[in-house]
């Protein structure tokens, strides 16, 4: 089959690789009909996530048709149309029982690697480094899906791929980002990063009853899409964000701040950007946390900072003083996708949300390298790329 492989920093190649086969009784093989490039794939592309290996198949947002099931998969049949959640979860460990699926205790065979860096290991994730399992991803024609009797959700009506594909990651991720803000009537939510996840977080925050949502980015086209979701927008290259937010909230600060940026944030102050770039290049820190720093400083006293942007390792100059003295709460996590798929699918069916509004590009799988370049450099107003493997 054809698959999009990570071949080193800033290099992906669509290569011919062996077809996957069932390795475990609870596996299924899915013939992929749609697969997306995620903003977090760019962290891999840019080489900032440790334990990648040349030849790794990327991709963790995919859906398709079941073509083979292992002997213990009784919930799926050949021919079923499924969306596959990006965290691999067994459904029976303590974490899964508590619906913390991205912390599944059994799906990461390389847990020992993650423990060295993180203390304890999170779940395995498709196509997202060896420390997170070493699983082949879904930017391919086929994928093996472990614990297929638990994770994937069946799509039994004729909703197009474009409307349900993002149940695999970014729609639930945006939703969880808003949910962690514990939104009360009158709350103002500020969101750093108006990419697809930030756009979904904005839409979700309104569905949860937020009074106002403010999206922060530097690309006008992304802010325009966020505005379509009803958000007010700020361009951090044009205004001082802390001043602007103080002004917009009459001095209180946003009740909750969502970091939907993560480890490769940009800073409008060149000296600051250079400082963190240098430390990152020399591996003195792995992540550039401007968005996080700013979100902490902006948040109102006693407010909540919700982190859904991906971080890989260590950050520097973390404003702990502001965080502690002002009684802030931080909530974080890779999304527990399985928790949200069913309720969000219902909302899609009820036309409460149509996630396809974020898509700007459809490409063939063979064009994945061009998709990565375009998405990375934000060319052609590239907001979200969907790959078609067939």
């Amino acid at each position: 089959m054809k698959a999009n492989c990570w071949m080193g920093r800033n290099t992906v190649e669509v290569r011919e690789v062996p077809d996957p086969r069932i390795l475990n009784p609870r596996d299924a093989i899915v013939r992929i009909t749609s697969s997306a490039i995620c903003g977090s794939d760019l962290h891999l592309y840019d080489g900032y996530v440790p334990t990648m290996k040349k030849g790794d198949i990327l991709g963790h947002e995919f859906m398709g048709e079941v073509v083979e099931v292992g002997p213990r998969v009784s919930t799926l049949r050949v021919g079923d149309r499924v969306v596959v959640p990006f965290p691999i979860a067994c459904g029976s460990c303590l974490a899964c029982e508590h619906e913390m699926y991205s912390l599944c205790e059994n799906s990461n065979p390389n847990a020992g690697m993650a423990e060295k860096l993180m203390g304890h290991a999170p779940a395995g994730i498709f196509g997202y480094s060896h420390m997170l399992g070493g699983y082949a991803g879904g930017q391919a024609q086929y994928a093996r899906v472990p614990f297929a009797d638990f994770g994937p959700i069946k799509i039994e009506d004729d909703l197009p791929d474009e409307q349900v594909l993002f149940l695999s990651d970014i729609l639930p991720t945006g939703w969880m980002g808003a949910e962690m803000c514990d939104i009360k009537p009158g709350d103002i939510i500020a969101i750093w990063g108006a990419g697809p996840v930030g756009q979904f977080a904005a839409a979700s925050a309104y569905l949860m009853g937020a009074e106002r949502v403010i999206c922060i980015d530097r690309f006008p086209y992304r802010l325009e899409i966020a505005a379509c979701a009803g958000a007010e927008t700020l361009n951090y290259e044009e205004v001082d964000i802390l001043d602007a937010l103080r002004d917009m909230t009459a001095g209180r600060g946003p009740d909750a701040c969502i970091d939907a940026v993560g480890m490769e944030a940009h800073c409008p102050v060149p000296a600051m950007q250079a400082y963190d770039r240098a430390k990152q290049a020399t591996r003195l820190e792995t992540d550039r946390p401007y968005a996080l720093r700013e979100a902490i400083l902006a948040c109102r006293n006693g407010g909540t900072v919700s982190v859904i942007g991906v971080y890989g390792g260590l950050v520097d100059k973390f404003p702990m003083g502001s965080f502690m003295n002002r009684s802030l709460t931080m909530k974080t996590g890779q999304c527990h996708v399985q928790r949200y798929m069913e309720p969000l699918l219902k909302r899609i069916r009820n036309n409460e949300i149509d996630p396809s509004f974020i898509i700007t590009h459809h490409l063939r799988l063979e064009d994945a390298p061009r998709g990565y370049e375009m998405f990375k450099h934000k060319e052609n107003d590239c907001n979200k790329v969907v790959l078609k493997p067939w």
Partner: protein
Amino acid sequence: MSEANGHKTDRLACGLGWASLGLGAVQLAAPGAVSRFSGIDDSAWSRVVVRLVGIRELFHAAVLLGSRRPAPMVWTRVAGDAMDMELLRRAMSHREGARRRRVMAASAAVAGVAAADLYTAVRANRMPGARTEPTTSLRAAITVNRPRNEVYRFWHDFENLPRFMAHLESVETIAGGYSHWKAKGPWKKAVEWDAEIIEELSDEVIAWRSVRDATVRNSGVVRFTDAPGGRGTEVRVEIHYDPPAGKVGLAFARLLGEHPEQQVSDDLRRFKQVMETGEVARSEGSPEGTRAMRQVFQHAAQPVR
């Protein structure tokens, strides 16, 4: 030797580590000056040799300063001293006059340092826990989200053990609490032995040991307790065995990525996977499932042929 003395020995060892760091840095930065000072600057190879010795000194520094209990590591310095003495002895044998006197002075300095190293190393051997026991003990623990009796029953059937103990090929139970074990030893050599159950207490503990002339004498005990608040069962394993080829073999196996400690915790992780999910998690990078060796040498994450 008391605990306080042990700490003192560690502090001595740490001091020697800093000395290695200083010396190594000087040898790498100014090999010319060092070879002049030692009287060997007439040799074309002296700078290369001084640099190599400098790299070795940095290695000493790394193991001494990077270790929680550095004292036993001083033996690496003792070995280095022996090497230096030999190098200087050869240098002295064909030198005359001022150079010879400088080589002699350098030798005397090395001899003094060697005495300090040896003193610390010998002290380290007398430290608590430093007795060279023939057996190695490994411990690991994990929490399994299943009821205690179920977890106990699964382990108690020794024929299940190869499902999660990577090094076991098979276990056959024989009557009377005896069983026959087959394992893959290091370098793929097959090892077989008989074992007997020496203690069993339903839902609480199982202990076994190899009988008579096992090639690798070993024993193990596993204890099961309820995790608090309905969190399942805590499983604690202790394994004692004679490492084949002794401590040296063990150290060598570690260098090759075969960490016995890691293997026991990997076994427990697989045990948990089997108990909770009915299978061992396999990825394209680790197709055999959790294994210490495989974590060092991963497949690319694409389907294996």
